[in-house]
């Protein structure tokens, strides 16, 4: 038994190493190994997410509320009663499938309407509250003094943040009019944005290199065993 486990985990390491190399080979150019890995990736992951959707979304949230006994299949306690409201999304889902039948395709529009409606509603509320108001609050708090006595560096930083933010906002206000006529403030705003982008880019380098080192470590140590 132990022998079977080690040999199969051996196989898994080889498979992982092969796929790692196949993906790396794409850096040189497209080739049969990459094509294989890519097509395997698509097939496996598409099915994987569908299976996950079926067992962790559809079964507990749609099948069980409609047929309480279905809970027994996955070893859960059945709910006390049916929850017929779940018929609404089920019907909406089926209506969307009608899009495959040209004659009834327009029925799917109601599903689209429902989906875009919820997306618009949630986005509106979430972005209004946790982005617009929240960020406005953060900017104001980092700019106004916390108490009457503050040091010179804090004053410098808060004035800097104030000017930088306003000029960046101003850049977005001006984009609609002709770019060539962009004035000094919006040019400064663009520079603020570019600084922020440079900082983000630089911060991300570290993380990605860490991942690369880890992959090479896997190849040399776990697979080849030469490290």
């Amino acid at each position, binding site marked *: 038994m132990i022998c079977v486990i080690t040999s199969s985990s051996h196989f898994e390491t080889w498979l992982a190493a092969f796929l790692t190399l196949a993906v790396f080979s794409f850096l040189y150019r497209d080739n049969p190994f990459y094509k294989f890995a890519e097509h395997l990736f698509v097939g496996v992951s598409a099915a994987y997410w569908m299976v996950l959707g079926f067992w962790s979304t559809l079964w507990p949230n749609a099948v069980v509320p409609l047929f309480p006994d279905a809970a027994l299949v996955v070893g859960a306690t059945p709910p006390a009663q049916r929850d017929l409201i779940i018929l609404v999304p089920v019907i909406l889902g089926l209506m969307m499938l009608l899009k495959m039948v040209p004659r009834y395709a327009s029925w799917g529009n109601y599903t689209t309407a429902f989906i875009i409606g919820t997306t618009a509603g949630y986005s509106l509320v979430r972005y209004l509250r946790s982005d617009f108001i929240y960020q406005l609050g953060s900017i104001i708090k980092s700019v106004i003094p916390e108490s009457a006595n503050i040091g010179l560096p804090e004053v410098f930083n808060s004035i800097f943040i104030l000017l930088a933010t306003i000029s960046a906002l101003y850049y977005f206000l001006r984009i609609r009019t002709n770019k060539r006529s962009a004035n000094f403030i919006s040019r400064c705003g663009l520079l603020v944005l570019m600084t922020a982008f440079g900082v983000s880019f630089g911060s991300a380098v570290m993380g990605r290199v860490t*991942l690369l*080192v880890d992959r090479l470590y896997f190849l*040399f140590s776990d697979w080849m065993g030469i*490290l």
Partner: protein
Amino acid sequence: MRNRFISIFTTIDNIDRRLIYLMLAITISISLFADVSFRDEPSELVIPIFNHIENLEPGIPILISMEYSPTSEPELAPMAKAVTHHAFLAGHPICYMSLWPEGGMMINRLTDQVFATYPDAKYGKHWANLGFKVGGEMVINSMRDSLQHIYATDAFGTSIDQIPLFNDINNLSDFGLLLSFSGGSPGLKEWILYAGDELDIPLAGGCKGVGAPQFLPYFPGQILGLFNGLKGASEYEAALINSRYNIDADMLEATTRMGPQTIAHLVIMVFLVLGNISTLALFILRRLR
């Protein structure tokens, strides 16, 4: 003469991208084999965390919440490992938990590895694993009131009443330090908003290199300290090496990985400098005409 320079710099200017890839891969591989490593220095971001654990009375438990998945493991696991080493050596029991479904697997991988080096470490006394609980900030909220309320058993199904580590723990306030190593949401941000800001216990955490801009503003007001990517972990390990503990530097993952990491940063910088020298040279040479 001038034309020759122009052609040389034009070549540098348009280096085949594959040459950059190759150089990066070769230098990282060589530095892996050559065991290149650089001694880091503890920074102001991690020193408060280290000192806090040092000054905590032995026996007071620490909570580590691991919110990451295999993709961000290389960046975040070294932090959790470094803290685990330190807490164990300083005599603090550690309780692990996760708000991510993949977290359970991450905890097992980490504890298997770290505690294998300490033969006298005992599950239930020195460390315990509460596993993953679904609910994000709701989990944190309930833990604030009662730990037993949300975690009846540990990750392996043992009732937590039977685990000695939990004898004196009723809720989050009974921990000496809360740590969240987070690769996304829910994670450190939720811990700050729902535990750190609400309770009077120190909170610290770690994030990926890309996440630093998001969390730095919370320092030092709302978080004690921050592990900023792999560099944060290696800084913490530097503090550990400099300390009273007799720890084998080879066991410390971030310090060994930081060598190739540094080389890669240098290679990227060299290419940036080369590119700009060629831009500048071409600009001047063309002006000379």
